[in-house]
């Protein structure tokens, strides 16, 4: 059975505004439900994780990608294929450690904040897009890659750029082998 080369076309798209506004409604609701920014951030991360563990199946089904052989390839895949597919943007990737397990994704354009100008004063520590961190973490976990994902810089907080840091952790199998 022959396969057509190249990525399968996912023709199912919806208005970006609906998506962005739905996300905004979600964040607004969490801000109503939780007083502390840390709690909102944590909730967004957990929800993102719940999305990520299912998103990976959709990603693999709709993209014709081969297995990644390195952390670097994985980071590129996230930025150039996944972000493009789901959010229509392509962050730039750079490796930020000599060990080759830390990467940063710089988001020049971030659709989630289309309608957000700045954070209110009482929500100065809110990581508005923290859902993204959970999504990446959950998706990676489903392909047996443990990682820590956090926002290193955030334009909404006054930083120059919005930067997501991905640190690949040693695989669980390696840890078990070491213990033995």
């Amino acid at each position, binding site marked *: 059975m022959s396969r057509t080369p190249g990525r399968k076309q996912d023709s199912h798209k919806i208005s970006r505004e609906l998506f962005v*506004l739905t996300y905004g*409604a979600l964040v607004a*609701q969490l801000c109503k439900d939780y007083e502390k920014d840390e709690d909102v951030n944590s909730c967004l991360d957990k929800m993102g994780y719940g*999305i990520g563990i299912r998103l990976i199946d959709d990603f693999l089904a709709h993209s014709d990608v081969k297995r990644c052989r390195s952390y670097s390839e994985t980071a590129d895949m996230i930025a150039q294929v996944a972000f493009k597919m*789901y959010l229509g943007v392509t962050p730039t990737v750079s490796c930020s450690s000599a060990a080759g397990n830390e990467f940063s994704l710089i988001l020049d354009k971030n659709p989630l904040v289309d309608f957000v100008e700045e954070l209110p004063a009482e929500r100065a520590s809110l990581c508005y897009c923290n859902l993204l961190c959970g999504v990446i973490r959950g998706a990676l976990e489903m392909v047996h890659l443990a990682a820590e994902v956090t926002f290193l810089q955030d334009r909404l907080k006054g930083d120059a750029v919005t930067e997501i840091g991905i640190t690949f952790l040693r695989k669980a199998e390696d840890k078990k082998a070491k213990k033995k």
Partner: protein
Amino acid sequence: FTRGKSPLLERPLCRPRGEVSLSAFALLFCELVQYCQRRVYSVAELQAKLAQLGHQREPLVNTFISVPRENSTLNCAAFSAGLVEAVLGASGFPAKVTAHWHKGTTLMIKFEEGVIAREKSLEGR
């Protein structure tokens, strides 16, 4: 303190609209429904909460939700109902919008008295 004009308001109205993948929205909406579900005690409350959130769209939203039998009265298009209600209200057509199970999903729009009266007076001219 004083602030300059908001740059967000200065953006031109007709900038190109982008698109995002349907699955991104579907997964986000599922998580949203589950979040609301954990915090309410009845189906009616859940629908009301979704309507509230929408107040800030369509059986599109229902395509990806499977409703268990015990919650069969739940219609997640309540979210769309809230959305429609907000849009109508903001554009000068205040109404009450609710989602119902009728021929699939039906949104019932009940305009306020003032809107009907206004229509009638305009027709008279």
